[in-house]
């Protein structure tokens, strides 16, 4: 019966005793949970269990197939790496929340119907907000609230979509959804918010860099990749996703070049990487879907690694601003080395993990005849190397010497980074085990002379451009700044618009009251002119004329009667 236990619940229920366990035992306990989780996944047979019927809808608590298992495995691996990285952490709220968060994400991946998905989706959202607040600064608090509102919007859209779909089809099964019904559009928007589609993206860059050193590592792995999973399940082959994905790969890299907060640079590059996956899902061929989900798998590891290395820098120096860092390789050589491995992986250098996964998406785009998307993805690939592969390590560890001489990262952080780096190289050198667990059979060879040489040309010439720009002084220096993005609309315009309406409304109200009072005043004057002491109708009339008028009236009545 142990296998009949929905995979995510292990961590959610496992989080309950966390606040009560003291000292190292707590870290050991937490680290054991994802190992147990992986062991549980290996015992599961394809199929579904935990099936109940509510209100005539069949709910499936756990659906085991290749796609859900792939994400289940990588989520547990990311959980293990994150917990190891946070070994030193004593924030029990953050620790318990991170387990609930990961558990909810895993639960959502295995959800076989949309109602169960919605439940876990929301639980993950709420837990994520608490992780953002783990930064325990005013900025984190505010960013968490902004994020909460956007997540709530995603939840409302999802529920609306599920409702419409349930009425139309009489089923809440989580299979291919598509855009044929309005319900599908609502659900796509809900997924799109969590996947950081263009213009729906800004919560990611706003909130993630505000979380704690360890919180951001957790956050980077789950919410957005859960959305990628949901898109792969529900919208494979939906053509509009190609263009959305392509836009996502291209525009964040401009921001990544000029952003100063290095964890925010990573958030922009995360957004760019999601674009590759979304485009792959949109193309929808078996090669493209394999590419998209395997890229999600590789991405979770190298992105965690990059966030861990920047987290270690923040932990040791107290800052993560490019303008205040530099020269750290002198005292943090291991962290620098691991960061470079993460950078090489995200840039898709041959022998690193990104190469064996991303190249599938690019090949699929080219072979399916999407020439413009292919070129944009190529441009974005060069750009990734530029800002993640070079800029991150360069400005943190090299560049001008900041004079900072922090100690090397603590042993647990180095161990977590080392393990992640090992996996990045492992997948890159020997991709077969990853290829074996992909949803579709893999008929693809990443290491051909054409792939290797063209990739190296693209990347190293991009590196040459960086070096040339640096040496000629054309490269924009790291400056302490805020860069306006779409959040400008709700952090600057919207509050002012509301303020203006409130103020303007006040003005209009005054105007309206004035006009009304004016009208009342003129009416009073008018009435006064007739009925006032000197008015026509209030003069004293002689009694005789009164009698005369009475006689006239009586006379008229008489004439009228006869």
């Amino acid at each position, binding site marked *: 019966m142990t296998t009949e236990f929905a995979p995510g619940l292990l961590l959610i229920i496992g989080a309950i005793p966390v606040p009560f366990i003291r000292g190292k035992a707590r870290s050991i306990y937490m680290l054991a949970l994802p190992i147990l989780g992986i062991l549980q996944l290996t015992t599961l047979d394809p199929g579904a269990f935990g099936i109940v019927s509510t209100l005539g809808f069949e709910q499936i608590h756990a659906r085991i197939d290749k796609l859900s298992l792939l994400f289940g495995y990588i989520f547990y691996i990311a959980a293990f790496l994150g917990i190891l990285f946070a070994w030193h952490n004593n924030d029990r709220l953050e620790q318990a929340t991170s387990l609930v968060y990961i558990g909810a994400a895993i639960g959502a991946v295995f959800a076989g119907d949309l109602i169960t998905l919605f439940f876990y989706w929301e639980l993950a959202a709420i837990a994520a907000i608490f992780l953002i607040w783990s930064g325990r600064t005013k900025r984190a608090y505010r960013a968490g609230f902004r994020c909460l509102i956007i997540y709530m919007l995603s939840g409302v859209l999802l529920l609306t979509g599920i409702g419409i779909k349930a009425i139309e089809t009489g089923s809440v099964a989580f299979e291919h959804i598509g855009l044929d019904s309005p319900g599908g559009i609502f659900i796509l928007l809900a997924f799109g918010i969590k996947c950081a589609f263009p213009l729906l993206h800004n919560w990611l860059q706003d909130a993630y860099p505000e979380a704690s050193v360890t919180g951001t590592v957790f956050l980077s792995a789950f919410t957005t990749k859960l959305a990628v999973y949901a898109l792969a399940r529900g919208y494979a082959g939906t053509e509009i996703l190609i263009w959305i994905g392509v836009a996502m790969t291209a525009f964040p890299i401009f921001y990544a070049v000029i952003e100063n907060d290095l964890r925010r640079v990573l958030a922009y590059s995360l957004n760019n990487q999601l674009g590759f996956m979304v485009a792959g899902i949109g193309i929808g061929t078996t090669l493209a879907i394999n590419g998209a989900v395997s890229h999600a798998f590789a991405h979770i590891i190298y992105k965690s690694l990059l966030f861990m290395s920047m987290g270690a820098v923040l932990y040791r120096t107290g800052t993560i601003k490019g303008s205040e860092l530099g020269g750290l390789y002198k005292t943090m050589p291991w962290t620098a080395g691991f960061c470079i491995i993460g950078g090489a992986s995200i840039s898709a250098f041959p022998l690193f993990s990104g190469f064996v996964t991303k190249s599938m998406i690019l090949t699929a785009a080219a072979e399916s005849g999407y020439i413009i998307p292919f070129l944009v993805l190529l441009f974005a690939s060069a750009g990734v190397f530029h800002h993640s592969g070079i800029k991150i390590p360069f400005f943190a560890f090299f560049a001008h010497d900041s004079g900072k001489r922090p100690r090397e990262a603590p042993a647990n952080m180095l161990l977590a980074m080392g393990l992640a780096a090992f996996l990045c190289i492992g997948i890159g050198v020997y991709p077969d085990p990853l290829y074996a667990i992909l949803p579709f059979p893999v008929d693809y060879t990443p290491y051909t002379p054409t792939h290797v040489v063209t990739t190296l040309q693209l990347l190293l010439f991009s590196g040459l451009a960086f070096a040339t720009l640096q040496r000629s002084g054309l490269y924009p220096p790291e400056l302490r*700044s805020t860069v306006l993005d779409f959040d400008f609309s709700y952090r600057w315009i919207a509050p002012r618009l509301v303020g203006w309406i409130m103020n303007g409304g006040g003005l209009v109200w005054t105007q309206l009251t004035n006009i009304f009072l004016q009208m009342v005043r003129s009416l009073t004057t008018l009435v006064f002119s007739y009925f006032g002491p000197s008015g026509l109708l209030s003069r004293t009339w002689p009694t005789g004329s009164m009698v005369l008028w009475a006689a006239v009236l009586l006379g008229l009545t008489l004439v009228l009667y006869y």
Partner: protein
Amino acid sequence: MDDKHGDKIAEEQESGKQYWLDDMRNVHKIFWALIFVCTALFLADALYEKHVVYEFENWFGFFGLFGFFGSFALVLIARELRKFLMRKEDYYDH
């Protein structure tokens, strides 16, 4: 352990320890090595048969030139964007 680290740093600063990259000549060496590798990669196009989908991918050195000019444009455009998008660090804080 903190003291140990501090002592080590102080010692290094006193002795004026130079790291390999502190010498600008070594930075130049890396740059020239990069140019050498890029040239070799550019010429490598002549040495093997490319298997690609589109004709333009077959142009000699296409990927190298695309990577170079693409990145160059990326940085220069981003640099210009700063003029419109960059604000003070505490822009949203009040």
